């Protein structure tokens, strides 16, 4: 009597979910877009009209190319499709060029590249433990995970309204994670290396990869109690990993090395004058410290995932002027853990709800207000109800304090968006809503980070009891 397509076969529900969210993305085409739209249009123009040697020197527009070379090549490929929509957008001097065809092309490019994300989600669903699954489709961990990832609120509003290309980048990351779960370590390393050369912000989670690959791949065996067996080190594996990273980097940076432009490229990628140096390396070190602390008992892909999430969260927390969109780096992988253990589900829900709420200031226009509230409610209600349903046999997911905190988001939103604009403080202290949002969400994110850290310190060494 299951309402959802058991007649049509097992794969059809996934296609329906993917198709449904794609149609929603199409409906979001005319919504507000941020300056990132112009950024990417400019990069299309740069890569299309200028030779390689000029890419990292071009500065007609203020939005200079500051992503690694693979992303520049990606824009180059896109520009060859763009010329069939509107040739004028590829002119470097057409600053802030905008018309309906440009909008259509850009939006469709994001929607189309999300297909990698859909594929990655499909692969992740295979890795999820389905032992506890009930016969009811909507209560299966695979189904819940698919919805949590495909219909993720943060991705929807950042990619398809604000305008960015996080979809396929997150897809690459999830794909590399899935490959590591499936014990295809070389592929996992390859995908991550490629990802690094698409967007260097992912270097925050590189320590997790490094340590896990070292621990689980280079050391081919471990002692019965889980600690490392030092004499099982395999040089060949280490070298092959190094080779992969080297080859990918060579492909990416090689041309610029040949042109002697490496310093310029690095200065664009890591703009020291922005003061990012301090905040950039500090969380990295801190994250490294967190991970190294427990290095010998990180066993198994789930331990790796936990470590990755901690790295991402630490970088978010301590690099405080890191963009709020970086919270997605932690939320998406955490979804994988949330459908397997009640404790993780609880942390995930707190992190996700506050993390997503912290994205609200990104969409400050009135027509988008109902969209962000409706989608937030949709995702939050679904995620909380489905995870509560999945773990209904264990103790409740939230204690009274956490429930209170989460419910407090509603009055906060009402205050910031509906009450504050009509008070006299709007002119004197216009930053109050932003401040309140940041502070309130900081509490939630810090709490989630803390609980995750504690669970990693006190939990049993993962991997021994779990079969993949």
């Amino acid at each position, binding site marked *: *009597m*299951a*309402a*959802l*397509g058991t*007649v*049509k076969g097992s794969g*059809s*529900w996934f296609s*329906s979910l993917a*198709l*449904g969210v794609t*149609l*929603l993305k*199409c*409906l*979001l*085409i*005319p*919504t507000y877009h941020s300056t990132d739209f112009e950024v990417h249009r400019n990069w299309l123009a740069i890569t299309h009209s200028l030779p390689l040697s000029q890419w990292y020197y071009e500065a007609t527009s203020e939005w200079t190319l500051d992503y690694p070379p693979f992303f520049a090549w990606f824009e180059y490929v896109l520009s060859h499709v763009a010329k069939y929509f509107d040739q004028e957008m590829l002119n470097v001097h057409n600053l802030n060029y905008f018309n309906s065809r440009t909008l259509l092309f850009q939006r469709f490019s994001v929607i189309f590249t999300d297909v990698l994300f859909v594929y990655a989600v499909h692969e992740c669903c295979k890795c999820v433990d389905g032992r506890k699954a009930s016969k009811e489709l*909507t209560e299966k961990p695979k189904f819940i995970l698919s919805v949590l990832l495909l219909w993720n609120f943060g991705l929807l509003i950042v990619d398809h309204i604000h305008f960015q290309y996080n979809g396929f980048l997150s897809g690459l990351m999830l794909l590399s994670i899935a490959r590591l779960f499936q014990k295809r370590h070389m592929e996992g390393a390859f995908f991550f290396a490629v990802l690094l050369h698409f967007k260097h912000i992912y270097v925050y989670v590189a320590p997790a990869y490094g340590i896990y690959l070292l621990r689980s791949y280079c050391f081919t065996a471990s002692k019965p109690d889980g600690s490392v067996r030092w004499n099982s080190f395999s040089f060949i594996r280490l070298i092959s990993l190094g080779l992969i990273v080297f080859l990918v980097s060579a492909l990416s940076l090689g041309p610029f090395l040949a042109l002697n432009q490496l310093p310029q490229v690095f200065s664009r990628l890591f703009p020291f004058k922005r003061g990012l140096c301090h905040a950039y390396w500090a969380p990295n070190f801190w994250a490294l410290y967190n991970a190294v602390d427990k290095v010998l008992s990180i066993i198994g892909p789930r331990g790796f995932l936990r470590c990755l999430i901690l790295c991402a969260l630490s970088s978010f927390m301590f690099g405080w002027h890191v963009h709020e969109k970086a919270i997605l780096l932690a939320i998406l992988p955490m979804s994988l853990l949330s459908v397997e253990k009640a404790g993780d589900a609880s942390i995930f829900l707190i992190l996700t709800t506050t993390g997503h709420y912290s994205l609200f200031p990104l969409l400050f226009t*009135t*027509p988008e207000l*109902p*969209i962000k509230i*409706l*989608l937030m*409610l*949709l995702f939050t*209600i*679904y995620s909380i*109800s489905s995870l509560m*349903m999945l773990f209904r046999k264990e103790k409740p997911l939230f204690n009274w304090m956490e429930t209170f905190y989460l419910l407090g988001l509603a009055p906060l939103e009402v205050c910031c968006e509906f009450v504050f604009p009509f008070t006299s403080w709007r002119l004197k202290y216009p930053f109050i809503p932003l401040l309140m949002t940041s502070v309130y969400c900081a509490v939630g994110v810090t709490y989630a980070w803390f609980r995750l850290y504690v669970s990693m310190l006190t939990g049993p060494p993962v991997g021994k009891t779990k079969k993949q």
Partner: protein
Amino acid sequence: MEKWYWMAVVVLMGLTVRWTVSLHSYSGAGKPPLFGDYEAQRHWQEVTFNLPVRQWYFNSSDNNLQYWGLDYPPLTAYHSLLCAYVAEHINPAWVALHTSRGHESPAHKLFMRATVFIADLMIYIPAVVLYCCCLKEISTKKKAASALCILLYPGLILIDHGHFQHTYNSVSLGLALWGVLGVSCDWDLLGSMAFCLALNYKQMELYHSVPFFCFLLGKCFQKGLRGKGLGLLVQLACTVAASFTLCWLPFLTEREQSLQVLRRLFPVDRGLFEDKVANVWCSFSVFVKMKDLLPRDTQILISFCVTFLSLLPTCIKLTLRPSPRGFRFTLVSCALSFFLFSFQVHEKSILLVALPVCLVLHEIPFMSAWFLLVSTFSLLPLLLRDGLLLPSAATVAAFCTACGAFFPAWGAASEEALQLGAFVAAARKRKFLPRWSLPFLPRVVRCLFLASVTIMVLLTLMTVTLDPPRKLPDLFSVLVCFVSCLNFLFFLVYFNIIIMWDSKNGRNRKKIN
């Protein structure tokens, strides 16, 4: 606990789709001097706010009836007045007399879209949710699935939130749905009051009035005209009279007032049809120019007779054997009869047929979904004129995905699922169809479906990509109307068969669902 969270998810999804569609263009955007339905609603807010009630329906220097004059019943006018109060509070320039004509701005668009959204949220959506929750003998998830499919019906979303019709269909259809709910759950007085309000909001609800009348009359007969039945009849009559009086109160002071309103509501001198509509008369006129051949009074008489003849069998059956199930199906067939044969039908009136079909979606998913797709297709010329191609394509695809996911397609095209069982059995007995053809009926239906969908897709592609030949500028619109009309005639026959040979609501079943 489970039910409320699925329904909440469904409602939020429906609301999201509605609001995202409303970000697109509206009718008459940037097209002076007349603009479109959007400007009509704004103008009604201006008129009702600035002029006294006595002048609303009359032509005067302040109220030019040629420029979007009020031609819907009083409840619409009161609603516009309510919106006007809010508008004036936000920005008086929006409803200032004369000077606000043709006013267009992003803030104003947001306001107008918000009025539709709120009306939908308060009237139509609760009715749909309650209706699905009250469905019997199906699981919670299937109720939520039905609700989702109904809320994702593209036609209503695109007309109300995209095109922006000056009378909010979600209000009139929502009120009618409350009426259906009330009457099906034996709250006859409340149901009939809700339907009277619907009727006083939009006179096209008359399409639904005959089944309401027959069903309630049938209930009275069932209870016995000597006892409770008579009591019920009297109560209903009083309720109806009271509702109408309440709505028309300001206009009942003078005879001329009420007559003028009636004249505005039923423009008899406008002719059999206006513009292109998927109506029998319009399709007929491709071959025979009826409008020119016959005098206007004869045309009206013919349309009247044909309409009533076509809906007579089902309504008589409903009166003699009233049941909520029969009531729903009769709503479909009556509304469809009115749409196909009545006079001065607008293409948007197909929504009046689509609502009852949505109500039977869970019973015959295949045919209902097919009908709803055709109904949206028949609106294609209108939607293209308003620049709504992208939201149309997206919402139609979403509707198909939802129906396909929840109601498996080919399994639902079997004889049993199409509910042709009783008909086939009767045909076998009475031999009015050749015996060999009977097992092929489901297959024939499936082939017709494939043909219909193929033609619709082809016509859509042609209309979007090609320009019509210069000698026949309306070629594509006429083709769309013609194809839709043929489909609707087929559905008329099908639904009439279902009703007349329906054995499920007879004496055999103890439960009435």
